């Protein structure tokens, strides 16, 4: 219980670290225009898509990797990465029976229901394995309601007008270094379109799995909720344990039109590396939602327990009057994990409202940084923001840092900011142990209480999973 014995604790092994032994169709390592043409060709893309990618690539080549985040890592060799990996056979899949059983088995092992017989009630799943989507369930049920839920590569072929109209409208191809890289080389991801007035009858879910060695995963997700539409979207991820670092640079764009609502929940459990900081995923992600319409609402909820390094700021552009943006986050850093994460709320429309609740938990030698921007533009009369950033420290080798940026250009804005840092105390743990609880149960209980405001925003199944994941991530961090 003293800091030395906390230090001496061994961490719970990563549960999802197995490798699927499968033959991959692997593009040669390295990034140049040829790589991009190859990806585009493999995906059978139209010319405009290829041009968009090339435009992004040329932009990327001129950009430098951002180093302002409060994280440390060796430079990434972008020429050593394979930008495309797909389980063979590489022909287009028309049904689950054509998917390699080993891939299906992988998702079974991860508890992801890809066969509709074993479906999770009320959830449609898109399963992405390395660079390709291998299964999307319930397409028919969804299409009866007019909802389009497809791998983005199929959407590009089947709904080019929609994709062309919205792709890059929230995160432009030149938005930042990693977004530009993604725009150039993205391989798969999910596309969802909820038509006017439709409440999506199922929760939509994508599960991302990185398997192949020396590859990066660059998925692209695009969700559009038309006027009065609403959708719940869930995202999960994991990767094998490897000694090398693997890059995951995703882009997610959300668009909500008048009176539309999008709730986007993530449980991120990429391989975090070992206790010496070897291996693990570099999770450099750009996620942004645009509340384009009046009274629209976008809500981000994330539980981040994985990755060696996390760099992500899911944000909202509150353009429509009365639109609402929310960000609820739990970020855990243990072992030698580093996270620099937070949100951006840009208030443009009148009476726009945003809520930020961020909970950072640091254990072992984890470093957790909250970085958030709240910007109130000139025309945003009556804008309101409430921010709450709480940090919890477990042990004395970890760190918590908070960088809130506030930029207010309209005097009618109302801003509230609360922040706290607490150390999970010996006294708190002792109190619970004195009532008969084991030390690890005591820690779980304290942490669950600390995260409660975020967990209650998660859909039911996710909330349970998140809580379990959290106990596993922190197991052994306090003795």
């Amino acid at each position, binding site marked *: *219980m*003293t800091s030395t014995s906390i230090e001496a604790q061994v961490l719970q092994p990563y549960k999802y670290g197995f490798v699927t032994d499968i033959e991959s169709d692997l593009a040669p390592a390295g990034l140049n225009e040829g790589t991009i043409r190859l990806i585009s060709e493999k995906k059978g893309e139209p010319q405009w898509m290829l041009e968009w990618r090339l435009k992004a690539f040329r932009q990327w080549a001129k950009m430098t990797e951002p180093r302002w985040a409060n994280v440390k890592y060796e430079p990434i060799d972008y020429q050593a990465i394979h930008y495309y990996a797909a389980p063979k056979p590489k022909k287009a899949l028309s049904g689950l029976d054509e998917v390699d059983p080993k891939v299906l088995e992988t998702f079974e092992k991860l508890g992801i229901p890809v066969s509709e017989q074993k479906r999770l009630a009320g959830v449609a799943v898109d399963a992405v394995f390395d660079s390709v989507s291998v299964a999307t369930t319930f397409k028919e049920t969804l299409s009866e309601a007019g909802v389009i839920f497809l791998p983005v590569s199929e959407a590009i072929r089947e709904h080019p007008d929609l994709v062309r109209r919205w792709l890059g409208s929230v995160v432009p191809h030149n938005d930042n270094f990693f977004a530009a890289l993604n725009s150039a080389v993205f391989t798969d991801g999910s596309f969802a379109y909820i038509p006017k007035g439709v409440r999506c009858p199922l929760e939509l879910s994508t599960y991302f799995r990185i398997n192949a060695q020396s590859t990066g995963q660059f998925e692209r997700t695009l969700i559009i909720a038309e006027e009065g539409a609403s959708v719940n979207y869930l995202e999960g991820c994991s990767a094998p344990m490897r000694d090398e670092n693997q890059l995951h640079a995703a882009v997610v764009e959300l668009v909500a039109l008048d009176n539309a609502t999008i709730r986007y929940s993530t449980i991120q459990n990429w391989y975090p590396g070992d206790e010496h900081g070897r291996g693990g995923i570099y999770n450099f992600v750009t996620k942004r939602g645009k509340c384009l319409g009046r009274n629209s609402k976008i809500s981000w909820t994330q539980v981040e327990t994985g990755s060696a390094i996390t760099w992500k700021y899911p944000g909202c552009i509150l353009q429509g009057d009365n639109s609402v943006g929310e960000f609820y986050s739990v970020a855990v850093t243990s072992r030698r994990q580093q996270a620099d994460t937070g949100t951006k709320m840009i208030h443009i429309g009148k009476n726009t409202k945003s809520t930020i609740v961020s909970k950072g938990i640091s254990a072992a030698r984890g470093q957790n940084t909250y970085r958030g921007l709240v910007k109130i533009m000139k025309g945003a009369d009556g804008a309101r923001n409430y921010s709450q950033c709480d940090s919890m420290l477990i042990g004395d080798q970890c760190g918590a840092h908070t960088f809130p940026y506030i930029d207010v250009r309209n005097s009618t804005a109302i801003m509230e900011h609360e922040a706290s840092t607490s150390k999970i*105390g*010996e*006294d*708190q743990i*002792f*109190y*619970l*142990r*004195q*009532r*008969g*609880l*084991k*030390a690890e*149960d005591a820690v779980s*209980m*304290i942490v*669950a*209480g*600390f*995260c*409660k*405001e975020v967990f209650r925003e998660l859909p039911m199944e996710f909330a349970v999973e998140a809580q379990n994941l959290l106990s596993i991530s922190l197991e052994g961090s306090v003795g």
Partner: protein
Amino acid sequence: MLEVRNLHASVDSREILKGVDLKVNAGEIHAIMGPNGSGKSTLAQVLAGHPAYTVTEGSILYQGRDLLDMEPEERAQAGVFLAFQYPVAIRGITNGYFLRAAVNAVRASQGLSGLDPLDFLDVLQEKLKAIGWDDSFLSRPVNDGFSGGEKKRNEILQMAVLQPTLAILDETDSGLDIDALRTVAEAVSKLRTPGNATVLVTHYQRLLNYIVPDLVHVLVDGRIARSGGKDLALELEARGYDWIRPEVAAA
């Protein structure tokens, strides 16, 4: 039930307890009094197993078991309960959930199945009534935003629910107004059985008007300087502690 022999304990390598001897039998109530800094709370914390304290010498037998060899949760599961002087808050966890988790942890250690929330609520209702609380306290986070008096009552509620064999109350009376003191004292008296025992750590004799102890011990400078019947508490109230000090020095 409890036998403390020549107990020495220190915190941050400063010795606080310097040879405590104490014997408590089933059915008894003992009061431990003494001036500030004499080691009363340390004794309570050491009995419960607080990891900040190191026992350097001596032994503690509890129901024939070596208490010092048991983890804090094992002691709790074996019926040792400490009502804390400064109960801590647990944000986001409701009192009801916490109480049930505690009861079920103890039950699990006895090989019993856990109580579900509905069964547990039945158990709770009468205990709540005993300390004059309604259901609303169950949905409030543990000690979060509680007044000093509410925290102390909450300790007694936990004690009533867990029904310990050995209850140690560390200055449960401090910070209570006279009505609250009476409620708490009545609740404690009600829990008394021939099979359990209570150790009251207190500064004031007023609590002892409500809970009459079998024995009163005066702790001075880490040692029990004097033991006696309930009259000793009255004498202390009248004369203070100074008259006892020379005897420690002489001992």
